[in-house]
């Protein structure tokens, strides 16, 4: 298993659609296999779509567009049982609401996206199975949840 490479990029989403990039084995740090757009809904604590999937081991770029009126982030959690701990730590620290000290418990995390902002995070899909992506902004983790499926 390869260690996930975390790339967090802050920027306003360009208007052009991103076509799935071709897999290029051997050049993992630049090649993107899939780009998936996830939105935070206009004014509810929900991800849209509420579930995404990609093949395990492939490199995925999440374009996280915050369409809402509150700030949100996008965090993929390694083990669902850690969500409470991560959320509590995030609430406590403010800022990007990402408890970097606990990064071993996260597969990927974005910076905080202000309302209207788009941020990106790239990571390698974990071993096949179901994972949760969540917003760790204070209090949101009880509602703002999605399912990431890592396919065989």
């Amino acid at each position, binding site marked *: 298993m390869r260690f996930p490479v975390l790339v967090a990029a802050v920027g306003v989403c360009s208007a052009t659609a991103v076509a799935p990039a071709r897999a290029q084995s051997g050049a993992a740090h630049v090649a993107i296999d899939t780009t998936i757009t996830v939105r935070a809904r206009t*004014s*509810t*604590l*929900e991800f849209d779509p509420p*579930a995404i*999937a990609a093949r395990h081991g492939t490199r995925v770029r999440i374009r996280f567009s915050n369409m809402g*009126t*509150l*700030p949100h982030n996008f965090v993929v959690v390694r083990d*669902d049982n850690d*969500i*409470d701990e991560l*959320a*509590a730590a995030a*609430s*406590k*620290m*403010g*800022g990007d609401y990402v408890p970097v000290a606990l990064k071993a418990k996260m597969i990927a995390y974005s910076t*905080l996206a*202000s*309302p*209207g*902002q788009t941020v990106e995070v790239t990571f390698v899909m974990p071993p096949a199975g179901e994972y949760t992506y969540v917003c760790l902004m*204070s*209090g*949101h983790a*009880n*509602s703002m*949840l999605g399912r990431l499926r890592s*396919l065989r």
Partner: protein
Amino acid sequence: MAESSSLSDAKRKRLLVGICLALIPTGASFALVSNILMPLKQQFIVTNFQVGLIGGAALWGMALSLLIPVGEMFRYTRTKPFFILMLAMMAVTTSLEVGPMRWVPSVLQSAGLYGILVLVWISGWMVVLRTQAGHAVERLQPKGMLLVAAVLTGSGLFLLSFATSMLTAFAAATVFAWGVAFFFPTMVGVVAEKMPRTGSLGIVLTAGMWLGMAGAIGVPLLGTLADRYLAQSLPASTADVLKQVEQTFPNYVLRAQLADGQPALGYREREVADALAATRAVLAVQQQTVSIDNDPASNALRAIVGTAIPDEPLVSDANNILQPAEAAAGQRSFRSVALAALLLVVVFGIMFAGDRRRGGYRAVMIDAAAAALLLTLLWPSFTQAQAPAPHAERLRVLFLGDNGHHQPTARAKQLLPVMAKDGVDLFYTDDRDDLNPSELARYHAVMLYNNHLTVTRPQISALLDFVSKGGGVVVLHCASASFQNSEEFAKLVGAVFKSHGTGTFSTVRLAPDHPAIKGVPTFESWDETYVHARHNPVDRTVLEVRRENGRDEPYTWVRTYGKGRMFYTAWGHDERTWGQPGFQQLVEHGLRWAVGGKALTQMATGPKTTLVDLAVPLPTYKLPPSPWNTLDAPLKQAQAALPTRESLELMTLRPHFSVTPFATEPSIGNIIDFTWDARGRMWAVETNDYPNTVLPDSVPGHDRILIIEDTNRDGLADKVKVFAEGLNLATSIAFANGGVIVAQAPHMLFFKDTNGDDKADVRKILFTGFPRNDTHGSISNLRYGFDNQVWGSVGYNGFRGTVGPSTYARGQFGAGYFRFPGDGSNLEYVARTSNNTWGVALSEDNFVFGSTANNRPSNFVHIPLRYYRAMGARDTTLPDISDRQDIFPVRDIQQVDQFGKYTAGSAHELYTARAFPSEYWNRAAFVAEPTAHVIGMFDITDDGSAFAAKNRWSFMASRDQWAAPVQVKVGPDGAIWVSDFYTLVAQHNPTPKNMGGCCETGTGAAYETPNRDRLHGRIYRISYDSAHAAPAMRLDNASPQQLVHALTNDNMFWRLTAQRLLVERGKTDVVPALIELARNQTIDDRGLNPAALHALWTLQGLGAIPGNAGALKVAREALYSPAASVRRAALMILPRNQQLLDDIFAANILPDRGSSGYTGDAGVLEDADAHVRLEALLVLSELPGSAREAASILDVMTLRANARDPWIPDAVPMAAARQGPSLLRDLVHRQVPVNDSMAVSGLKRATQKIARFHAAKADAPTVVELISVVPQATPPLALAMLNGIAEGWPQETPPQFNAEQRASLVTAARGASPELADAFGRIAARWGLPEAFKTQ
């Protein structure tokens, strides 16, 4: 658990001290009259009147010292008729009290009674009674007390005038004492409570009037009367006695002269000479007029008696004449004065009756008033310095806007705080119908900034009438183009808009000294360059012109119209001009001129506020596009906290509403929720731990449940009991199941007082599972619902855990509304909301409303989540139903996001009583917004099966930076009760970054700052000035019949309380009475039958439906009730069986093709109320499917009103889910109405949802069957069905098709339109079979 007694006791004590102080001069004057003046009277031969004047003078000094601020007095007497009346009454009561008391000893003495003993008796009673006055006030209310006092005093005095024995004298004196004891304290109290704005001065004047009148009128008046009656009482023998004196007394004078003043004589020469002179004077008159003048005669007699010449029979003769005459006259004078009591009985009687009609006596503010009394009596000069500045009246202005491109709301919002600071309150409307006489009567002026092209005759007549009778009108910019169908309006304005260009310009003043514009700075701004037509120069004065190419266009002018005035300016197209201080001043000056009178010179600015330096600054935030939580310059100063009374004066209320305090710190702290028990006592959750003290269960917290009582019904809390303490982060309270339920995340707690001592004896956890890592995402607003369950809201913390049969995993129970039976045996997640949710309100027809953070001030539960989940649909998040989410603060506020919008709608109450005007009944919603210092108002109206909430600005808006209303509820009295956290910081998060090391995030996830105040907390009450009486009410010891009767009360609080008590009582003896109520098929003018509704739900709570045949029958009959809410309740309550289905069709709630011969939109029999139709569809979703139902569902869906409805397209799929896929096949064949995109979209929505439901079963034959009808189906519905299939089919579950099915699929897709082809593609992708629709 100590009882802390508070305000009223303090008040009583202070009043007693004040009275004691007042008794010092009183006592002195007693001594004067009894011990000094009586000898004086004989010494100097003066009349009773003169004695009275001298005795009264002793009181004048005191009175004058209190009446120093005479100028102030006149200011008040001019403006406060009530105060004048009270002063006048004070004069009369004084005459009744002080006058007779001063004379009691001498008069009774004359009658041969021990007068001084009677006086002691009276005084003794007064001391005892005045210390007990509080209890009497409690029973009678102040004005009732005054009434009773007047009756008793008058009667006592009357009886006293007939007293001939000590026994009768004492009896009469007792009655007199009981009356008179309460006059002074109650009069002073009433003035202090009703007119706190008169400040200490009111007390001074009232007390001064008491003393002054005692001195000037009371005592001398009685003397005068006694003189007159005495004179009339002199017998004919008087002349004989006097003649003998004339002959005899010169001898005594001579003897004395010879004896050269030797004391052995036993008399004084001077006295005898005086008596002789007086006698001769009387007789000299008699010589000329034949009769004697009784007045000097009585003086002469008095002088004769006064000589006390030993053994002279004439002295005793004179005394024998004088004594009975004095007694008779004195007693008669009492009788005359007693008549004055009649006047008091009338006046106080009217006042008392008036109070009863208005809902009982209401104190305005007593603590300060009682304190002022003390100060007044101690330091009269001090009060002069403390006398408040005169209060100019705030100007109330109706601002008429519209929803057009000028954005009047946004413009008015710019003006709102500027005007409020200067004592002008704007009330916004965009409803022209508010131009009606009764509404206009509430305002000083109307400001028009609207683009309504037309106006109706009644509307324009009302406006013109308002102005011609003296009202002001301000016409701004585009309003000169409005009301084009009214020539009279054009004349009123003085010209109409003709055309415009644009440009940046300034105006030229033609009349710079005109009062409407004097001192207003000119300004330059971009604006439209208006040109006007149809000028009406009559009574018009042009103040400014716009000069362009040497041509002057009138731009700002004034006109008079009847007794009223009009101000117009063409300025004001958009925010560029409206933001100019010059424009704002121009409008304000113009407005003041238009209102006229004092409005031009006086500004009602309210209490002065001061700024203080803050140890830690207040963060302010940059607006987008700056990233969220970007700090702007922090505020290093903030307003100092104000006393409650001053804070309340800074509130702008809707016209004719008043605010009065109920309880304040230090008796209470931050009250996060409150409710009332069956006795009408307030139960409140006081939180000291919110938001950042999060403690484990093992450590007692600092939150308490308080019982806050107003025992003497003076409107102020006077007793605070601690019901339970040691709580941590308790957030809500509701009565249920014989005790109280308290929300304290993570638990739902139950408390019960088993022995009636107002202390919690039973404490238990009902269930647990509310996370609390962010304390503002917790539980709020528990309420006992119609369905006999406890409702509440929870923020984004949600719930995780198991309660009875229900288990919720992470993500299944987020923010929203829930309900549970009072015993905690289950927990239902009823509705999902978008975010932190606080407000919960029940309407009178049993809809559940609430408010959510972040731009969602009003929502309601349309369909409980269980119906969505039953068909495997995604949860619907309740949308906001408000037309605009703006807040309308009247001062600067600090927000992190949602700038200018609702961000913390912490309470959402509906007006469910009848003490406000009818436009509030069951439709006004009050949303508390602590960060904006306002209670917003919405008008809730039906919108099909949904509701619309029209933003009606603020119900209350405070200029106090500390005001933070968090809870709003309709009280047992029909008034609105508010809890104010009274803090500078109500905002929870985020923690400000980079603000000089400030601040930390607390354990409750709120940022920590000392500006989060813990010392203050207030509960106040907002009432309608002309509210009708809410009779005192309590149900704690009510009989079952009384409880049933209370279901008819006009205040939903009492109806729900009675329902709860009947259900908690659990006895079915009331079932017949309830059936009787439920059977009633009338409706009120709101279309409601509240009694029948509550009767049905009470029967449900008692298990009588379906258990009791009579109850079941009446519930079935209720399906025919004219009240939609009653029909809906019956649908909710009746058991789900074939009978109910038959009843639904029989009652024509849903169309029944079999019986009605349905052919289309026309002639269909179905319920007129969309809420009822929707509820019936939900019933169908709980019954087994049948062809009859399927036909009905199809007919419902294709009716245009249903297709266009907000929620019926969601309910139809729920009902359809119990039917086979054939319903869907039939549906997609139905025609869709052309040119009605709303109906088409509803049909598509329902179709897609039904398709999604069937596809989710992953049954290949069903799907093939559905897809195969696509070529024949109506295209938009076919598309919706395909989309539903694509969404519903489970991911990664490729179907297996046989050859025939594959062929059907290919056939169905052949020749599809591009839109449909796309949809086929999505299905193929979902299946993972890209070639599914392609020829092999």
